[in-house]
């Protein structure tokens, strides 16, 4: 599976998480853009670059992950998402379910091995 040419959006307010994800996926050959909040990310999505996938943290300063996904989809309708959250009792809001987001796209921090996320992305893009 080739990951080249896949543009990945990472939004997480925790720097270490952001950096780790960025590093890993870059090493995996993705074209990664990482942001620390939803607003900056949305601003970037309004640009010319087309993203295939986003890994979104839920608890963010300002707009939260759910809102970010909704808006990002509006901006880039072809984009897929993984939700990567520390909230263990998270349940997917109906609007996101309606968008086609399922439990398989939700990952609770921390995943022991980031390969899991990488595999999930591959699965989503197939």
């Amino acid at each position, binding site marked *: 599976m080739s990951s080249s040419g896949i543009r990945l959006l990472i939004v997480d307010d*925790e720097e*270490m*998480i952001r950096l*780790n*994800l960025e*590093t*890993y996926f870059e*090493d995996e*050959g993705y074209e990664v853009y990482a942001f620390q909040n939803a607003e900056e990310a949305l601003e970037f999505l309004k640009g010319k670059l087309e993203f295939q996938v986003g890994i979104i943290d839920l*608890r963010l300063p300002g707009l939260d992950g759910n809102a970010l996904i909704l808006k990002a989809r509006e901006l880039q309708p072809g984009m897929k998402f993984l939700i990567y959250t*520390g*909230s*263990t*009792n998270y*349940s997917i809001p109906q609007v996101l379910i309606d968008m086609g987001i399922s439990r398989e796209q939700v990952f*609770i*921090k*921390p*995943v*022991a*091995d*980031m390969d899991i996320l990488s595999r999930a992305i591959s699965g989503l893009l197939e």
Partner: protein
Amino acid sequence: MQDDSSVPVPWQLFTFFGAFAFINLAMVLYIFHLGNLIVGHHVPQVDAVMAAKYQAAEAHLWLEEFLKGDVKESPKNILPRMHKVSAYLKGLIEGGSTPIGDFHSADLPDLKKTLRDTQEKFSQLKDLLNKRLVEKESAGIGTDLEQKFDLMFRDFIQEIDKVKNLLLVAIEEDISSFRRIQGIAFIISFLLFFIAGVLFFQYERNKAANLISIQKEKKRAETNEKWLATCMKCMGDGLIITDPEGSVTYLNPVAETLTGWSMKDACEKPITEVFNIINEDSRKPVESPVEKVIREKKVVGLANHTILIAKGNEREYAISDSGAPILDEGEEILGVVLVFHDVSKTRELEREIASTKRYLENVVDSMPSVLVGVNPECNVTQWNLEAQKNTGISQAEALGRPLSEVMPEFSLGVNKVKEAISKKEARKIMKMPLKINGDKHFSDVMVYPLVTNGIEGAVVRIDDVTDKVRLEEMMIQTEKMLSVGGLAAGMAHEINNPLGGIIQGTQNVIRRLSPEIQGNSEVAEECGTTLTNIRAYMEKRKILKFLEGIRESGNRAAKIISNMLHFSRKSESNMAPHSLSRLIDSTIELAASDYDLKKKYDFKHIEIERDYDEGLEQVPCIETEMEQVILNFLKNSAHAISEKKDPEMKPKIIIRTRLEKEMARIEVEDNGCGIDAENCRRVFDPFFTTKEVGIGTGLGLSVAYFIITTNFNGNVEVESQKGEGTKFIMRIPLKRSQV
């Protein structure tokens, strides 16, 4: 009783008066006899002597005349007179009937002798007289003979006077003895009369006294009679008197009311007609007590539950009665007295009491608690249905026996019972372990002393609180887990982020040292070294190993957090029916391939026996959670088996499923080291583990417990014998409605 004014004349009185009359008569006769004796004995004798003297004198005179020559006179006038004298004398001496009258012979000796002398003189005189007569023929007067005769005659007269005087003296004596006798008779008579008077007085007095006492007696009898009559009339009991044949002779007013018969109608009627009684239950006639009394001649009581039917079947009365014979001194029956009274109210009360008793017994029996009554000696006085059920001892068997005997496992409680009775205070024993039908149960025991109405003892109430205790334990367990869960939930996010930093950072570090990642070599060369050199250094300094360690430790921490989070998460309602046997099979497969299991325990060598109930198929659960539960139990069993260092033992785990009253029962049984009682209680506690540090988290069984109790609404128990093995039993309701 009729001739009560006369007193019987005492026989002494009769005898006395008889004797009195007889003695008096005898005395009168004797006096009469004496008089008679005087008049008819000595007096005629005197007459006869005088007559003899007269005749002799006359004969003398005539003789002298004749001799003087008075020829006119013949000896014929003289001799007869002499004969007469001789006859008198003879009569006087010999007695008997003489021509001159009847004489008694001379009874006095003097008299007799004198008479004989007189007779002698007279005979000589007669001879002399005869001689003079003869001489007259031949000679003249004045002879010697004449003088001799005169002398003789004078002697004779003297002699005869002597007789006369003797007789007169005898008469004198007769009279004086008569007087004496008369005096004595008078005195005796007087005495007798006096005695008679005294006796008669006594008799009269007795008679009067008798009369008074008779009158008193009569009055008393009358009073008694009245008293008795009033008693019989006024008594609250019915009273019937019959004659010896059983015919009614008397009914008192109460008897009249109860039987419905008036005295007038009932008289002479047989008792069975008037006193119509039947048995209360069978309603068959009962033998009349009167007949029984007549037959047995003794007091008889009536059989219980007798009903008296009043005349005309109008009314019925429950009665109780007794009959008694009236006996005379010879034990002959004069009649029968029958006393009875209306016990309808009593009977009604009795029935009420009985029904109240039954009601109370029912209440006591319908109690879901064991209720046992005991006396101060702790002997059973009350044993309700629940007690019978729990002990298998019937009420009849239990009553009167010591409590410690019928409930041996209750011996601890017996002291409390005694204490409650002596102190008159209720006592409690909470959660007392008791075995009921061989199963371990917990009971709350309440001992209430009986303090009212002088009844001593206590009531022991035993409630099976096993379910409650289990529920409490479960709640406590759940509470523990929820608090762990709450804690976990609160800190999970805060810990997970740094953990993510550690784990993923470590992963990136390892990756960036890896020759597989394309950029690594280039960057190393840019830095004037080679990736190979860097790696060689790292290997030498064990840096890569440390990194791997950091990663693994992070992972383990993350896993603990994730497990802890189970306690906080009420699983979402994606419970669905799953085939239990299939789930178990797949879990066993999973266990066999589980890295941890493979690594730590020789799982392949454990024999796994599957014992599935075919009637049990679909069980509502969450598949993954169910798998986790079973896996956790299997891991626990595998560990327990590895702990048991017995080369002889063939390690074995039995998984059993059973359909049980709307519950699925799943058992995981091993023959491992077992758990002691102390640890049994804590086995589901979070973080409780007997494994070495670093091997168990102490969460596996807790998580299983939590999932079953909270998510599946089931329950889990553990049964274990140290050294023998352990059995976990879980029950999951088949219907989801129980939330």
